[in-house]
């Protein structure tokens, strides 16, 4: 009797998952982008830490670092990183609503309402920080 490729019981066919599985379905692609977003956020954080370090080295070093960040390549990176950070945040808040069960008395608050609350809080805090920066300068 012929054995199907792959391992396991003879006669059974064991399908193999191609490495391009995440291109098969829009939902898989969105998942992969969510995972990839963390790479961009990690790179941004490293850049930010370097920036803080340059600040500690004095005004000249900091100014030179800022000048470097003004290059088209770094601006492009930050635009892409911002887009990924926003996407990551949106998916995070949506998933939080699924994971965190909020109860009022014996009733569970609908996940959509939990998501709306987290999005609301996120918007208010972001606007607050933006206003604080604008009013300071």
């Amino acid at each position, binding site marked *: 009797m*012929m054995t199907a490729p792959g391992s396991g019981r003879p006669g059974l066919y064991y*399908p193999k998952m191609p490495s391009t599985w995440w291109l098969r379905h829009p939902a898989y692609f969105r998942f992969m982008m969510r995972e990839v977003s963390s790479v961009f956020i990690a790179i941004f954080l490293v850049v930010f830490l370097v920036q803080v370090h340059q600040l500690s080295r004095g005004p000249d070093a900091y100014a030179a670092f800022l000048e470097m960040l003004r290059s088209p390549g770094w601006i492009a990176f930050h635009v892409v990183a911002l887009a990924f950070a926003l996407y990551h945040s949106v998916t995070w808040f949506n998933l939080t609503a*699924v994971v965190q069960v909020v109860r009022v008395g014996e009733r569970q608050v609908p996940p959509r309402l939990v998501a709306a609350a987290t999005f609301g809080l996120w918007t208010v805090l972001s606007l607050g920080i933006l206003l604080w920066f604008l009013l300071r300068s």
Partner: protein
Amino acid sequence: MSEETITLEVTRYRPGHDREPRTQSFTVPYRKDWVVLDALNHIKDRVDGTLSYRWSCRMGVCGSCGMMVNGVPKLTCAAFLRDHRPGPIRVEPLANFPVVRDLVIDLDDFMEKLRRVKPWIIRKVEKPLAEGEYLQTPAQLEAYKQFSMCINCMLCYAACPVSGLSPAFLGPAAIALAYRYNLDSRDEGYHLRQSIITEAVGVWECTFVGECTAVCPKGVDPAAAIQRSKVAGAKDWFLSVLLPRGGR
């Protein structure tokens, strides 16, 4: 006027003869009220009696007729031809499972995983029959009811890339079922079950793709069950470290 038809591209695999599955096209009459399963039954009755697939109730309850319809796991008794016009419609065995023959997949591994999570009510000491049934309030029922609607159709395994990439993964339905019993007010097997689903091949394999929930024909949310079990597992671990006797 000639009769309207639609083409089905069906996966065929004959164990012992074929090295790998191949595709065979069948043209069947198009009927507005036909589902993919009706088309398969038509092929088996009128065209090729050797076509093999599972089905039973034809009403979305038995969970036997799950297949990939145009690449998406579906109950074929609920997948209307009219939603896939003009075709062709690709019908394949459920993804991420070994194929026995044609559209029939092997369930042994899934059944073993289901058994492993102990999907029954566990009591430390059984109450004597004379003391009557275990009572439950409507709110206590509501807490787990959604997760008890699973019909073991395995669509969630076919939708889960983690199940495809690491076949040892306990998988969405088994974990959702474990979670269902963990939430049951009559149950006392939480720690026993939790220790099984928080093993390396359990909840921590899940990367929260969320497609298990998206394809579930019964509105169960296995993705939520898995993530909540992760939270519970993490909480248990912290308590076991911080509290004497593991906080039990």
